[in-house]
């Protein structure tokens, strides 16, 4: 809603620094400190077991060259088999534990993120900020989840294997180790030139894929409109063009990454060649045996796959890091939870000197409203008059820039995180939560019984169509489920409000989206929800306003008229004009 649009500073949520991300992960790791330490130790032992085989093979080479006994060959081979058995056990246990710890941290991170996202002040968030929040709680969490799931265990194993194999090389012969390590500068230099250029290219590729998906989705979604306007050719053209652009970019990325791939092989060649050359020297000098050089060469060969795995993970680790900083940023941006007063307030809703600004624009100017307990007040006026803003403030979803709003004498914002909330806002947004219909309603009150849910649906006049659904109120609705008409969605919203059983109900154009016949039915449903409560109705149809105890007419951020329907008609002001136009 443009009326609630904020300034540029509200359009994007903050990013967390690398330190914040580390701390957030660290916090959850510490909750499993013992298991984390044990996991790392076991994984290191598993990698260590992997070092036995090349060493034993080197022993066999020396046995052969020095003409040893068959028993020595057999015992070395048994050593290889034993190490494999032990290594297999350790690998199974440690890889399983790595996943356990990883999934534990991942689950806590995503739960904190979603719970922080849900605590973000909805009334203050601009639309693009909502999009940002949506992609963080959805896409970014999915990206990190995918990478943790696929990469974490193999990556931990690969890093430990490489580190311990290098240690093994040193134990074998320092010169051979140094020879092998000459590959490291090649890896590092090529990676340093690769990463920034790759990041840019992959980002370009992802953006092109997103464009392509967007072209497809918007066309499929608006297919009816595209057909109505005979714009099929132009839209096909757009999809094909975006796909062709993605193809060209992908091809560029492919050429680039395949050209870079040679550096991996060059590094391998340098390391292996140096081990052979240095091995030649140390064997000639008599400081090492042929068997040791063999073991060193096999050690090095063993590292090819884990190093390749680490190198090719860097891209994904970078995108995981980017997603993590966006995820943790949500947690940092969310307001700290506040303790809501436990007692249920009385029903007087009072606003004094209420002004409200978005960025530098003041949209409400010194508004005073007072609703007596049980009173029903309608708010009317043209778009942009500030009706929705006032509704959001009165419902306590945002704090006014100036002034004070109280319910039963307590500042209404103090109830912002109360559950159940004494002041409920039913907005024009008719979102239906995906899942069984009864679960949607229980969002308002998780412990509601089936009978209570049924009663709420009946009260808003939804019992008829709900009974006609394939599985009644257990029918899956929302996205991918049974889709509800706007009228049914509005009834569901009202039924939720009933279950929440608030003291004050604010209805913001809750009955706007429908034709006249169903508008009448919805007004009856709204009446049922307002019954016995204090009610503020932001009225779209004047008929609804005419039933109210009192009507407030807003214009330009001020209340310009107030009184009952008859009083306002008699006064012959703004309201009387609107009414006359509507009746004409």
């Amino acid at each position, binding site marked *: 809603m443009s009326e609630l649009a904020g300034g540029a500073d509200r359009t994007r949520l903050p990013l967390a620094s690398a330190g914040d991300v580390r701390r957030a992960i660290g916090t959850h790791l510490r909750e499993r400190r013992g298991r984390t330490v044990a996991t790392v130790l076991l994984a290191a032992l*598993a990698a260590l077991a992997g070092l036995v085989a090349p060493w034993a*093979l080197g022993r066999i*080479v020396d046995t*052969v060259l020095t003409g040893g006994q068959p028993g020595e*060959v*057999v015992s070395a081979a*048994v050593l290889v*088999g034993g190490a494999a058995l032990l*290594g*297999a056990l350790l690998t199974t*246990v440690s*890889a399983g534990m790595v*996943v356990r710890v990883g*999934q*534990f941290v991942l*689950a806590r991170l995503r*739960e904190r993120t*979603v*719970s922080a996202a849900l605590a973000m002040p*909805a009334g203050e*968030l601009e*639309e*693009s900020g909502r*999009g940002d929040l*949506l992609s963080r709680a959805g896409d970014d969490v999915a990206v990190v*989840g995918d990478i943790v799931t696929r990469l974490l*265990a193999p990556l931990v194993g690969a890093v430990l294997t490489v580190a311990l194999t290098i240690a093994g090389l040193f134990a074998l012969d320092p010169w051979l180790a140094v020879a092998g390590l000459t590959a490291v500068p090649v890896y590092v230099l090529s990676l340093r030139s690769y990463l920034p250029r790759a990041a840019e290219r992959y980002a370009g590729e992802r953006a092109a894929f997103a464009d392509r998906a967007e072209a*497809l989705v*918007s*066309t*499929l979604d*608006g297919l009816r409109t*595209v*057909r*109505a306007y005979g*714009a099929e050719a132009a839209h096909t053209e757009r*999809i094909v063009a975006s796909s062709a652009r993605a193809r060209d970019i992908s*091809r560029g990325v*492919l050429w680039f990454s*395949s050209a870079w791939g*040679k550096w991996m*092989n060059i590094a391998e060649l340098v390391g292996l060649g140096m081990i*052979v050359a240095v091995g*030649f020297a140390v064997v000639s000098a008599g400081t090492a045996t042929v068997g040791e050089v*063999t073991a060193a*060469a096999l050690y090095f060969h063993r590292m090819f796959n884990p190093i390749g795995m680490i190198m090719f993970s860097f891209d994904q680790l970078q995108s995981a890091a980017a997603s993590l900083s966006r995820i943790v940023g949500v947690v940092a941006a969310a307001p700290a939870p506040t303790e809501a007063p436990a007692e249920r307030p009385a029903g007087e809703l009072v606003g004094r000197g209420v002004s409200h600004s978005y960025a530098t624009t003041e949209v409400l100017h010194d508004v005073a409203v007072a609703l007596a307990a049980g009173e029903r007040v309608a708010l009317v006026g043209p778009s*942009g008059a500030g009706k929705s803003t006032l509704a959001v403030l009165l419902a306590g979803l945002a704090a006014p820039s100036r002034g004070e709003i109280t319910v039963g004498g307590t500042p209404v914002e103090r109830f912002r*995180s109360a559950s159940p909330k004494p002041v409920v*806002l039913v907005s024009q947004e008719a979102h239906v939560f*995906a899942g069984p219909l009864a679960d949607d309603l229980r*969002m308002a009150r998780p412990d509601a019984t089936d009978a209570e849910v049924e009663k709420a649906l009946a009260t808003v006049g939804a019992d008829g169509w709900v009974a006609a659904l394939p599985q009644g109120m257990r029918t899956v609705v929302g996205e991918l489920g049974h889709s509800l008409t706007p009228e049914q969605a509005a009834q569901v919203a009202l039924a939720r409000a009933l279950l929440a059983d608030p003291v004050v109900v604010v209805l913001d154009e809750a009955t706007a*989206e*429908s*034709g*006249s*016949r169903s508008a009448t039915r919805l007004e009856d449903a709204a009446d049922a929800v307002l019954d016995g409560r204090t009610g503020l109705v932001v009225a*779209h*149809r004047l008929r609804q306003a005419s039933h109210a105890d009192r009507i407030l007419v807003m214009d330009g951020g001020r209340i310009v008229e107030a009184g009952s329907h008859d009083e306002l008609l008699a006064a012959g002001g703004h309201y009387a004009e609107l009414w006359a136009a*509507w*009746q004409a």
Partner: protein
Amino acid sequence: MIGAALCLVGHQTCEATVPLAIGVAIDFSVASGEPTALVLTLAGLIALFGLLTTCYRWFARFAGGAEIAEAHQLRTELAHHVLGGRVVRRRQGELLSIASSDADLAAGAVVWVSGLCGSTAALAVSSAILLSIDLRLGAGLIVTAAVVTFALNALSPWLARRVEAQQESLAAASALATDLVTGLRVLHGLGAQRNAAARYQLVSREAEQAGVRAGAAKAVQLGATVLGSGIVLAVSAAAAGLLALDGAIGVGSFVAAVGAAQFIAEPLAGIGMHLQIGASARASAGRIEAVLAEKADEQAARTDGDAPLTLDLRAGELVGVVARPAVVERAVAALRGDPGADGAVLSVDGRTGPVHVEPHRPDLFSGTIADNLALGRTGGPPDPRAAVEAAGAAEFVDAQPHGLDEPVRDRGLSLSGGQRQRLALARALHTDPPVLVLVEPTTAVDSVTEEIVADGIRLLRHSDGSTRTTLVFTTSPVLLSRTDRVVVVGDDGTLVSGGHHDLLGHDAGYRAAVLG
């Protein structure tokens, strides 16, 4: 395809030769102590790695390039087919996934076919190396490696099931998060944030458990692989070591035999993997085929026996229609030309012809506001200003930083329902069709704006002498009051035609329908 396959065969052959090369290097230079041998060995290694990396690079480029081009080709065909009106009943998400991931997968044929060739070549080379070192040793090691690989493969279906379960539970968690954040305002309005977070936590913990189960399966597979390759290694070390001790083979052959016995598991596993990829590529290709084979005329809309709504308008008339929603829905489907829909017949001065039906749901597209308004115009754009004003959108368009050139983000979802509705109406008016059908065009705008819209339609399309014809399905008294006449469709299908004010005065049913 042949180029890609040849390159990969070359690459895999080189990879299979690396263990042999290490053995030769040890035996020929390190053990011999001949400097020339060392130089020759190093030169050999450089040549081997040069060939290996060049082959791989061109395999990646041939195969990847072909895959990318083919995927684009498939998407192009799908786009033409879907927009050509030949696909009717498919979920949007399904079509999106067919045009994205299925197209990519189906295009991968060149990759998996050359993958199969490459793995087979590597298998052949490794086997040849082993057999040439010693026939019985070679045969024994090949059999051992094959048995171990097939035993490991037996784990894959079990692993695949757990991974699939995990992906499903992750997707469920992700979908729930998106759904909850989309309904953020609703949750805050109710004060249900904590209930929602608790619900998410349940699903998240399920995903965690599924993740742990899948991870455990992967860990078992990883451990089994370590064990399997260890067994092959121990067997080959014992057998080749004893042969070497007897002097039957040299040290270099020992190293090569052990290395090749280790390596042989890779092409064996590769063949299994490429066969699997091939199977899923064929499944994707099948799904694409099914879409491309679809014909719209199989999907005739149901007729429920009611007589069609027959509307005869004079050119230049602005007519309102008041009817039950079900009747409106059938009539609109027929007017926009849905296959088989026969709920309405519209003629102007006795003749039927093309009609522009503006969908009730206001779909906007990326681009600027002006781009959206020009959707149906093929010629150069005359000023859309008049249409914007007539649709009551002038105030809001002017408030945008770039006015008409303001980009529409997120398909207009960042605009309010009323703003979207007014822009869609402005687009219909700007398209200026001879016969325009509107369906409840003002349900999301306030009463004041509704007045502007009602006057605007009248002024823009129905000033004196105009031959433009407009039909509005609505129950809004404001819109109806500006029409030339109103057609009321009774519950029994009878039509009553008259002026809005006359009908208000004489027809109680009309009064109830319009004023509630």
